[in-house]
């Protein structure tokens, strides 16, 4: 459960989020809105990558501004650019990096790695150099590195922006199988069309909230697209 309580944020004297109060309890929630409307800032609040200038956000009663580590252990974050998320030279080593605090034996580590790579469709790539993967495969690896720690909540900020249609579909199909809570920022309206709830953000405010079909329609109309 994620709760925003009168949350506002400004960069310098420029307001980016204005008095946002909402409660995110649905399993899959989409966030849409124009470039620069504040979507990234909104979701970055949830795992403490950004700290509000006023108000607060709570994740299961924990404030990420105060309990960053505990919150980040429950909340994983997926970015658009997989190149910035992959740290180790090979696929297997990058998964191992995510699990470095889990005190696993070599066998357990191999098993977890194999299982998660199988889930994202990268089995057989354990020893592959990570930077030689295609961008679609890199993003699948990035998904694997965040899912392998078994978070309660997964936030994704434009996870498919750099991907081709096939890999976009692969990511969506993967999302559909997840049991954790999912908050996805996207410009690809198809990605969130079958979610339980969609928020439309404009100039730092939630201007529409609810049924995906209606919210997507509202957003299209407000952008002058029919």
């Amino acid at each position, binding site marked *: 459960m994620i709760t925003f309580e009168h949350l506002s944020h400004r960069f310098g004297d420029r307001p980016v989020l204005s008095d946002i109060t909402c409660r995110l309890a649905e399993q899959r929630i989409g966030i849409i809105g124009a470039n620069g409307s504040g979507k990234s800032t909104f979701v970055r609040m949830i*795992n*403490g*990558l950004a700290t509000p200038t006023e108000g607060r956000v709570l994740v299961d009663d924990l404030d990420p501004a105060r309990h*960053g*580590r505990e919150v*980040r*252990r429950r909340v*994983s*974050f997926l*970015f658009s*650019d997989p*190149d*910035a*998320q*992959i*740290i*180790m*030279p*090979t696929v297997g*080593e990058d998964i*191992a*990096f*995510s699990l*470095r*605090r889990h005190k696993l034996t070599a066998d357990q580590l*191999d098993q977890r790695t*194999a299982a998660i790579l199988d889930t994202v469709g990268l089995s*057989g*790539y*354990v*020893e*592959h*150099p990570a*930077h*030689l993967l295609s961008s679609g495969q890199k993003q699948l690896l990035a998904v694997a*590195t*965040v899912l392998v*720690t078994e978070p309660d909540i997964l936030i994704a900020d434009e996870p498919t922006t750099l991907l081709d249609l096939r890999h976009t579909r692969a990511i969506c199909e993967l999302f559909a199988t997840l049991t954790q809570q999912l908050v996805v920022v996207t410009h690809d309206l198809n990605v969130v069309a079958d979610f339980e709830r969609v928020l439309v953000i404009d100039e730092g405010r939630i201007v529409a909230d609810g049924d995906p079909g209606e919210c997507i329609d509202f957003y299209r109309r407000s952008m002058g697209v029919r």
Partner: protein
Amino acid sequence: MAIPANALTSIVARWEFADGNPLMGAAMIGVYRPGASILHRLPAGVKLLGLLVFTTAVLIWRSPITVAIGLFVVAVGYLSAGYSPRVLLAQVWPLRWIVILLVPFQWWLGGWRSAVAIVGTLILAVAAAGLVSLTTRIVDLLAVLDRVLSPLRRVGVDPERISLLIALSIRVVPVMLELVDTVREARRARGAERSLRAFATPVVVRTVGYSQRLGDALIARGIDD
């Protein structure tokens, strides 16, 4: 775990020598390549110790004969690990400018023997280090490093941070090379090949952007845990 070793090697090799330009190989310096040779199976600590002994030995007995023997040892090492002479060349290729500058200088200063000894030792050290990193997974290297550095804990240094820093540096090289390539292409496409500003500005901007994203990702992946 089964991996298509041949397919993999061929992908890497193709990428490495794209356009027949061995310079491209520079991006692959020290990137682990899976294999089943004795060198691959040797514990990382043993290889690092061997590297230390080898480098010290060629440094102490610096001479053309030592260089010849060292070269033989290194070449046998590469061949036994299943690498072609091209892989060896790619490891030392980044040294070419230093070599071109150093050889005449050392020759003039101390004669050809000194030139061969000094430049040869340098090449040997890099080639041997390259062989170790080609046959050893980074995690294994880091594990050894964690152990070797663990006494530092007592003075308040976290060895895991140091090894992470090393892993990050290794990671950043290919990313930066790709970034520089992209900018160079964009510059060419816009007909500004010779403008330094048209090169430096986007490289700096993108590097800053990349490091911000990398920083975010590190925090999100629990770097401060």
